[in-house]
């Protein structure tokens, strides 16, 4: 029996058992990882997983069941389980909660790729990493050198009782380097291209764009130099953040608080709530006038670019922050309905085993009009920080403290001496309102995050926050090291 037939059988079984709506995602997921560490291949793996996850709606309550059992008996049992779970929830429901999506699609989507990774011999992949990682070892003080490549391929088909059939083939790729230096009582790390590498949707061209080998020696030298660098001072300074750190700042202080399920308390017991309350919509001055943060799930090479989300809603663009004002959220069908809007296709599941939920997707800070070097002009006493090292933010997404791997003093508009252990802290709206310059599109990068955690059971999401470097005034720095 083909999977189209099995899916039809499952949806029919769910309907007969009482589901007023049901949908099903069938997925085949392949994950390949290579990681070299100090001249050996620490990881060389290839994993394939196949299965399906099914949602059933009964009396306004959702049930979800997932299985890898593709027999007719297994499909029947999974459909029955989804309905049984929904009924158990409906029995104690205080009011009607969920509703079917507004429409159906029959369509397909495939990630555009320039070079198929399957055409790159494994030996060549390993050789690339070993050469780049070797170049990190600029001295014996480099205790650990690491280099890695991740390749993901997800082929999935979405079916619903409304008649949707959406077939998608998603390719995501990433790579990176890390040098760990030990000496002088210090341990210092440098990573490249961002703190977790460079992750995008696409093929082998993403690895080639990263230019690991060309940058490895510099990264090793910077890690070593940090061992003897001066401590980042404590106090209040103007700061300039590199693009990957701005990406992290968007992720933690805009992307998560703008998830409408979080705003509505769906994540309250675990990842928290949000200061971006519904009453603040179209009223809160979240950032300065130059700050516009936009969802674009159609962006070429965006890590989260797909044709349709995992509720079967078509991808598009919408603003969260426009000219500094809060104007929108990341939404699902059920949450959007509560504020009189329609889903903006921000629903994802980690894989077939997991229930779809609101996830940050491609959430981009639009570039400004200042060349990167222009960010330094007018900074009398500041700090330029690059590459995230630590990140923590409260469960309302207000009080944050982030650390970077490396920094440089900025004096009278010029980059000066190297600083170690840079940290900065603040409150989200005050921080984004202090943003007075954003670098232009020449330094705008589709930074991807391959490891965003949310939900219970915990799901790992792959998100993007495209950004260029930016400048913020009067920020608390040096926290955690006596500040």
């Amino acid at each position, binding site marked *: 029996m083909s999977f189209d037939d099995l899916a039809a059988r499952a949806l029919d079984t769910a309907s007969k058992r009482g589901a007023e709506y049901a949908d099903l995602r069938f997925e085949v997921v392949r994950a390949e*990882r290579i990681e070299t560490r100090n001249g050996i291949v620490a*990881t060389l793996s*290839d*994993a394939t997983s196949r299965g399906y996850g099914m949602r059933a709606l009964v009396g306004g309550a959702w049930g979800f069941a997932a299985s890898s059992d593709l027999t007719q008996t297994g499909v029947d049992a999974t459909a029955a389980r989804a309905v049984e*779970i929904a009924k158990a929830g409906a029995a104690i429901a205080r009011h009607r909660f969920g509703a079917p999506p507004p429409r159906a699609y029959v369509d397909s989507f495939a990630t555009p790729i320039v070079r198929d990774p399957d055409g790159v011999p494994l030996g060549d992949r390993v050789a690339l990493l070993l050469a780049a990682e070797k170049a990190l070892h600029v001295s014996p003080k480099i205790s650990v050198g690491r280099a890695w490549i991740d390749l993901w391929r997800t082929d999935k088909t979405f079916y619903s009782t409304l008649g949707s059939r959406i077939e998608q083939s998603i390719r995501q790729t990433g790579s990176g380097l890390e040098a*760990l230096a030990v000496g002088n009582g210090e341990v210092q790390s440098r990573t490249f291209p961002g703190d977790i590498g460079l992750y995008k949707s696409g093929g082998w061209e993403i690895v080639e764009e990263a230019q690991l080998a060309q940058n490895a020696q510099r990264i090793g030298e910077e890690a070593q130099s940090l061992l003897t660098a001066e401590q980042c001072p404590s106090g209040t300074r103007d700061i300039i953040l590199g693009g990957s750190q701005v990406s992290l700042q968007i992720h933690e202080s805009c992307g998560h608080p703008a998830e409408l399920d979080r705003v509505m308390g769906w994540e309250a017991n675990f990842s928290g709530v949000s200061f971006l309350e519904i009453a603040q919509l179209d009223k809160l001055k979240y950032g300065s006038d130059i700050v516009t943060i936009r969802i674009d799930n159609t962006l070429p090479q965006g890590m989260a670019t797909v044709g349709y989300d995992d509720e079967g809603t078509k991808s598009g663009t919408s603003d969260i922050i426009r000219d500094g004002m809060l104007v929108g959220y990341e939404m699902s069908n059920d949450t959007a309905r509560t504020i009189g809007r329609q889903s903006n296709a921000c629903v994802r599941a980690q894989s077939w085993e*997991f229930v779809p*939920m609101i996830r940050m997707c491609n959430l981009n800070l639009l570039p400004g009009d200042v060349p990167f070097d222009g960010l330094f002009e007018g900074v009398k006493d500041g700090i330029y920080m690059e590459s995230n090292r630590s990140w923590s933010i409260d469960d309302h997404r207000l009080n944050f403290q982030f650390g970077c791997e490396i920094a440089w003093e900025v004096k009278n508009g010029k980059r000066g001496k190297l600083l170690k252990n840079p940290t900065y*802290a603040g409150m989200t709206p005050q921080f984004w309102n202090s943003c007075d310059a954003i670098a232009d599109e020449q330094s705008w990068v589709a930074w991807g995050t391959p490891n965003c955690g949310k939900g219970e059971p915990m799901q790992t999401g792959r998100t993007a926050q495209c950004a260029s470097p930016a400048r913020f005034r009067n920020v608390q720095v040096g*926290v955690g090291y006596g500040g």
Partner: protein
Amino acid sequence: MDNKQREALAERVLGLSTADQTEVTIGTESADLTRFTHEEIHQNVARADTGVSVRAIVGLRTGTAATNLLDEESLRATVDRALAIAHLAPEDPELAPLPSGGPTQVPDGAFVKATADASPQLRADMADAIFKVAESNAFWCAGFARTQSAGFTIANSNGARASFDGTDAGINVKMNASDSTGYGQAYSPDATALNARSVAETAAGKAKNSAQPRGVEPGEWTVIMEPAAFGEFFAYLGQHFSAQSVDEGSSFLSDGLDTSYFGENLTVTDDYSNSLAPSMPFDFEGQPKKRLTLIDAGVAKTFVTDSYWAKKLNRENTGHALPAPNAYGPQAIDLVVKPGTKSTEQLISETKRGLLISRFWYIRTVDQKKAIVTGMTRDGTFLIENGKVTGGVRNMRFNQSIIAALGKCEFSNAPQRTGDYWFSLVVPAAKIEGFTFSSGTQF
């Protein structure tokens, strides 16, 4: 799939390999979770899967491949893929042979049939009991009730054979009042041992007692962390006990063993057989786990290894491997902190001025070697004055070295299980002097 079926499957896959050495692992999981907010179930999920992983070693070359497709053709393709990867991999001169295993004893209580058989109705009943506590207090609640069972079997060509089945159940509740919140949790291998109403009442009591929270100044405080909070804080020391971290220089233990790093009250073991968190008696290579004393009265005694790091550092294999491929090194995943002699109430009564902390959020490492971490309090933070809890305080951010914090500490006499199923901790409440807060919030 039960353990006999897993063992038969492992033997069948092992028989497909022509590698010099082969390891086959079979993992099954059935995990159900009911999640709620505002007295409604908004996520109600179940998943079941079986995965097969193959590690093939040819000479000094290794490859791994994994699948959840259990037909003969897919299993053969997975073995062939692992073998093909191994042939293409560079040699690792320090590669260790796969362990040959040994006898192990599954601790009592690790598997409870009632948990494995739990229905959606059981979890809905738990949720309903929690809803009623929220409604009777005019609060709203969020949380989950979950039940899961997992099975793991390993077989390798050097003779290791081991199987384990375990269950776990958990309840997590956050009660939300107008200007305060409260937290409760409970975990057990036995779902029927969990009392949802009691957990909800604990959370509601915290929300009630922390109403109208006051702001207090950041700075150095005496703190008493309840087990949920102390477990989250202490977990960030776990990575330091890995041989890999010690060897690369990122662990405080890189400065040497048999050194007193902590106060005499701190004794830490890694013990899979602890009755509050009974777990797998062998590691993910099939090596029997050693029960280790990692810190004895403040003195660092040892760290954990797997086959690779035992050979590399010429130490005993303690049986702490993670699943292959593993770039993180061996890990201590059954940490237990020895309790003290006083109740939490007595620790509070002996505190002139301090803070009682229910739970932390978003702890992250700021400085790995010094074990400095930052994070936030949440869901029930209280002021202690003259030995009594006098009300709630607004949440604060801390920046604190775990090593320094545990230099002057004492512990309650009532340990609790906290943490996830595959990385559990058993810890008491902890009283710590001079704990550093750096900023506050308005909630």
